[in-house]
C-alpha cells in the first residue's frame, strides 16, 4: 500500500525532505513506519518523533491504511 509522509521542523531538516511517498506491505503500524524511516534517514535517529495520521495525533500502535497521510514531527513548539 502507498503512504504519503510529511515531515516538519527539525524532522524535515534531518531527513532533508518534507514529502515522501512510501510503498509498504499491509498491516504496518505507525511505530514500524518510523523505524523504517529512521533506518532510511539516520539523522532522524536522534529526534523524538510524534506522529499524526490524516491530521489527527496517532499512537505508535496505530495501523495504517492505503493512502493515509502520515506526519512525523518533533514535539510542537508554537506560541
Amino acid at each position, binding site marked *: 500500500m502507498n503512504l504519503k509522509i510529511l515531515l516538519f*521542523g*527539525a524532522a524535515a531538516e534531518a531527513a532533508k525532505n518534507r514529502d515522501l511517498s512510501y510503498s509498504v506491505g499491509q498491516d504496518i503500524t505507525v511505530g514500524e513506519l518510523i523505524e523504517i524511516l529512521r533506518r532510511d534517514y539516520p539523522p532522524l535517529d536522534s529526534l523524538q518523533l510524534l506522529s*499524526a495520521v490524516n491530521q*489527527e495525533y496517532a499512537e505508535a500502535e496505530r495501523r495504517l491504511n492505503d493512502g493515509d497521510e502520515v506526519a512525523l514531527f*518533533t514535539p*510542537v*513548539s*508554537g*506560541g
Partner: protein
Amino acid sequence: MDIAELTNRPISVGDVARRFVPEDCGATVTLDGYARRFTRNLANGEIRQTQYLVYEAYEQMALKEMKKMIARAKTAFRISAVAVIHRLGRVEIGETSVVVSVAAPHRHEAFAACSWLIGELKRTVPIWKKEVYSDGEAWAEPSSSLGTQP
C-alpha cells in the same frame, strides 16, 4: 464568531482584540505573544540574544487542532467569542507571533480561558519555532518551555 487562523503577515493585536465585542460581554482578555530579544537561561543566568524567529506549521492539522481547542474552551468556560491567530514564517523581535483573545460576560472566565488556550496551543497545535541567534540557530525545545514560551 470564533477565529482560528494562520498567517504570514503581521498581526494587529488591537484589531484582533476588538474584532468582536458581543453585547452580552464586558471583558476581553488578549494574550499577545512576541519574539523576545533577550532570554535569561534560568539554570546558569546567561543571557542569550535572539535575532529573529521562524515558525513552521502543519497547516491543515494546526487549524483543526486550533478549532478543537476553541470548541473545548467554549464548553469549559462561560465565554462568548475566541480568536486564535498564529504567525508563520520569519518573525522579527517584538513582532506578534501569536494572539489569543477571549470575550466573556465577566473577566474571570476570560482570563482563565485565555490562559488555558495558549497553554493548549503550545501543547497540541503542530507549529514549530526556530530561534536564530547571531552565531547559529536551533529549533525550540518544548521541554525548555519556561525559557521559550511567549
